[in-house]
């Protein structure tokens, strides 16, 4: 396979890693966009989802929003935002699109996590005299944590994928190496860029799994309970 060895050559050429169009700069852009937007999306979606889950309302919203997120093409939103007056402000359309597509998995998973906490456990906590706030912080949140982190993980992967697509709408990030490769009809560069993007997505997924395990409030507890 010429393209595979070509991609290897492309990746091992140090000139391709340096400069404004080099891998390091594109990777930094990609991580910066993804990180900021994931954080913003968490700040927006998690409080809403946790509150709605705590009071037990808005289930239809939480479920439908992820269906809508699935049906709306990312590329369409990126291009539409770029053509609005927002497009004159550089990165703003990309940042908005990234946040928009990170919100549905966060919202849906956190809400379902809160609702799926065993009703008997909640009633036991109430019976012990816990206030609403104590119930939320000491019972619901720790038990909903695994699904909340599943949401963060899918949102993270989604953000990395959307940031890649942003290159098709003329933005930076690692996707730019791919689109530039297509424009130059340089298949090895396309494959090399795609490998980098795929590895980054897997890396982000693994990191978020590890982070989720490290901060698990129930870590080590199950052993004691048994």
């Amino acid at each position, binding site marked *: 396979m010429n*393209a595979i060895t070509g991609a290897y050559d492309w990746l091992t050429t140090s000139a391709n890693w340096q400069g404004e169009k080099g891998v390091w700069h594109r990777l930094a852009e990609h991580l910066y966009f993804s990180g900021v937007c994931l954080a913003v999306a968490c700040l927006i979606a998690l409080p809403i989802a946790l509150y709605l889950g705590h009071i037990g309302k808005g289930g239809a919203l939480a479920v439908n929003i992820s269906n809508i997120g699935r049906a709306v093409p990312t590329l369409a939103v990126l291009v539409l935002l770029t053509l609005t007056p927002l497009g004159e402000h550089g990165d703003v359309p990309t940042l908005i699109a990234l946040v928009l597509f990170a919100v549905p998995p966060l919202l849906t998973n956190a809400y379902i996590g809160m609702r799926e906490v065993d009703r008997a456990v909640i009633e036991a906590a109430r019976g012990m005299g816990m206030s609403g706030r104590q119930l939320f912080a000491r019972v619901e949140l720790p038990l909903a944590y695994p699904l909340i982190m599943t949401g963060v993980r899918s949102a993270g992967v989604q953000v990395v994928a959307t940031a890649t697509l942003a290159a098709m709408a003329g933005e930076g990030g690692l996707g730019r190496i791919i689109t530039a490769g*297509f424009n130059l009809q340089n298949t090895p560069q396309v494959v090399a860029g*795609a490998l980098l993007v795929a590895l980054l997505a897997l890396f982000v997924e693994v990191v978020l799994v590890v982070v989720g395990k490290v901060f698990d409030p129930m870590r080590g507890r199950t052993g004691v309970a048994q």
Partner: protein
Amino acid sequence: MSGQNCLVTNDWICGEYVSSRSQELIDATVQHVGITAASVAIGVAVSLPLALLARRWRFLAGPILGVTTVLYTVPSLAMFSLLLPFFGLSAALVVTGLVLYSLTILVRNILAGLQAVPEEARDAARGMGYGPLRLLWEVELPLALPALLAGVRITTVSTVALTTVGAIVDYGGLGSLILDGLDTTFKAQVLTASALCVVLAVVADLLLLALQRWLTPWTRVRRIRTNRPARAERPAKVAEPA
């Protein structure tokens, strides 16, 4: 000539665009539907044997589910790009990428559906002399059908959206119009094509829902039958033996 004004002023909503480029829109929509339908159909055809393999040999279940999950993590643009050396700039590239994505949800759903078949149903069929193939075809698959079709609905909706990314190799259906509209800053084209994508996804979902109801009438009958008496006979339930 107020009709042509919207093309000159580059409005978002432009009736003149839709009427003057209707053939272009129809062609793109046909391509979009074709790519989506082919991907989902091949996806089901590949997922079914994979799910059966995973069920037959437990040690294969882990690797099959693991690989399909990893495939799902790969961003769409990277997926299509990685297939470029194998398929070149072709519709086959887009369809292959979309099939690989569809496997994650389809294999999981089919497997869950098959595993949820009640053991009594299997025993009864075996007792009636059903062989393994007839058991699969006449008992297990029909009972797993609701789960399979639920997976097909999810996959179809996300495939309609993902097909747009095929624009990178010029086989993106409506996505090609969207990308083209970006290069020429043609707002009406971008908005019309984007709206058509969402309409396609919604229509496909509703059609599949109708298909699901038509193919699995028993799921509705059972729900109606158990719901009504349950409400009326609730007090009696306490007395029922466990």
